[in-house]
């Protein structure tokens, strides 16, 4: 037996040992990035509109509620948004318009206040700040963009009876202004829909907050969580967002996402 033959035998032995495991490993560990990319692709819609309620329950059990109508055209970074508040009376009629801007991470944003009778352009807010006493902060409100995170598949778990992929997402260091050091995402395996998110603040080993997306239903062929609840695990308070009268891919008039429409009192 020559040296060449010995090497061939060794490679064959290695192959015999490794090959049976390799396909199984590949099937059991899909790429986290591919999963998130697939998830985004599946749930992208041309337009979306709904009415919604926001309920804040503080640790003493005091409840505050607001209602609004939302219109969106496009998806994530290229979306146009118009929101008009309907309730309570103190904020009724206030409108918000957000338009994407080429070459910029920040969209152009305007606010219409009926008390001032004119629109105001507003600047991007601090991502670290909570808002109006709710359990969300501005970073929580941004649509999750997996490209800004280093992601890895951590395993699988069952959430509310649904098998889920568990994905760890760490904000990329380059230019990162995230207030979190880590997010743990729970992605339903059957529909690749986010159903839970644990948020770890920097320097903390336990999650500071937990977002639960529930009442997931199929509307006009699209999955959507009609209920989102953010709980501050330290304070014991929670904020719930409920969506109603949801519809997708309805043509939106071109004039809806304009400053002229934003300043139309009594309009959409």
């Amino acid at each position, binding site marked *: 037996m020559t040296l060449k033959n010995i090497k061939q035998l060794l490679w064959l032995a290695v192959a015999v040992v490794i090959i049976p495991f390799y396909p199984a490993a590949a099937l059991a560990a899909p790429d986290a990035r591919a999963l998130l990319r697939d998830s985004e692709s599946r749930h992208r819609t041309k337009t979306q509109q709904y009415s919604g309620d926001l309920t804040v329950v503080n640790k003493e059990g005091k409840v505050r509620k607001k209602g609004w109508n939302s219109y969106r055209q496009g998806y994530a970074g290229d979306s146009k948004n118009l929101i008009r508040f309907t309730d309570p009376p103190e904020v*009724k009629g*206030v409108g918000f318009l957000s338009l994407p801007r080429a070459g910029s991470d920040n969209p152009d944003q305007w606010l219409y206040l009926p008390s001032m009778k004119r629109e105001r352009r507003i600047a991007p807010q601090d991502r670290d700040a909570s808002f109006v*006493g709710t359990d969300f902060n501005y970073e929580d409100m941004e649509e999750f963009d997996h490209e800004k995170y280093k992601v890895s598949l951590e395993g699988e778990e069952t959430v509310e009876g649904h098998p889920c992929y568990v994905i760890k997402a760490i904000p990329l260091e380059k230019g990162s202004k995230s207030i979190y050091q880590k997010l743990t995402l729970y992605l339903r395996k059957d529909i690749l829909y986010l159903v839970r998110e644990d948020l770890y603040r920097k320097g903390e080993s336990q999650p500071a907050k937990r977002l639960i997306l529930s009442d997931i239903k199929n509307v006009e062929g699209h999955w959507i969580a009609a209920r989102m609840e953010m709980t501050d695990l330290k304070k014991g308070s929670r904020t719930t967002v409920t969506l109603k009268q949801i519809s997708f891919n309805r043509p939106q008039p071109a004039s809806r996402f304009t400053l002229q429409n934003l300043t*139309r009192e*009594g309009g959409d």
Partner: protein
Amino acid sequence: MRVFALLLFFLLVLPCAALAEGFSGYAELKGMAYSERSPGDPYAAGWGTVYGKWEERLAESQLTASLRAEWLTSPQTSPLVFDPADRKLRRPPLSIPELWLRVPLASSHDLELGRFQLGWGKTDGYSPADAFLPRDLTDPFADEKLPLWGVRASGQEENLRYQAVLVPVTTPWRIPPLGSRNAPIASGALPHGTVLREADDAPPLPGFAALRLLATHGDWDLGVWARTGVRPAPILRFTADPALQDGPVPVVTVTRRYPREHAAGVEVSRVAGPYVLRGELAALFSGDAELGDAVIATLSLERGFGDGTLLVTLAGNAIDPPVDPTLLFDRGTLPALIVAWNRTEEWGAWKAVWDCGLERGDGILKGEVAYNVTDTWKVTVGGDLPYGSRQGALGALHDARRLVAAVRRSW
């Protein structure tokens, strides 16, 4: 979701009037306690308001109407008279803040007819484009806009917008009774104890016409405007009729006149990182010897801090007016520095305002805390503290130092 959060932030920071289809409104009871008792003004005053608003869609059109009923103890509400255009000296017990119909001319072009409020200008705190519009200073710390009877055409094509307004009837500024603690007029010009008798003279009929063009380009928002017509802020005329001087103190009759004024201005604002910078420049021309011309510039900076906003505005007039500027009302406080800071908390909101006259060193410190009992019940407490020289428009309100408490129920 982010836009939703940003909107919520502003919603709770800035209380706004209700608006949408259906019926809405509020009832409010406000009490004021003053640090001093000035002649004719008690230590305490009450203010009750019931406001209802009805909104209806008529196909693509929009009809809005509102009615306000008020009861004031000091200064007292005027007798119940028919004054739909709000041209009387005092605040009426019943008024129509809004009554307008909007008809779409095209998809992004509207025609609005009726009685409505108008808001122009870029700079918050003080705006030369907005300052000429009629105000109700019955409560000098509230600075409430008066609605107008008029026609407005507005529209948008791409990034260009326009507003054309025709207001056929003057709605004059409403100022508090002269000589009262709430009158924003410097004291000392007249002998101590002078009795001021205000004549309920009729303001002129003609109003004004105005055009505003706006454009958005990247971070920049640009605008130009022009207007011509009757200026709604009065020029006061003081006359001493010898026939009335029958007591130990002089009696002075006060009448009002309303000169014509023409104005043009530019508006600029831009987003710069977390800041919004705004600026305005306006040239105002008048042939009136007492009003004179003006070149008013404003610069403001706004920044959001979490659930709050800090706003700093600097405003000034490059031309000294020919009369005491406090008599010109809309530009009486200039030059001025205005700093406003507000925040929303889990329980409600608070704000602090410092309005500082830069020429005479007078100013007003204002603080307010609002507690949201429920979504529809709100309790507010606060105070207004004018200080400094009484020769300034702000220091002249020294006797109006007060604590305020209010409870509001909305529906």
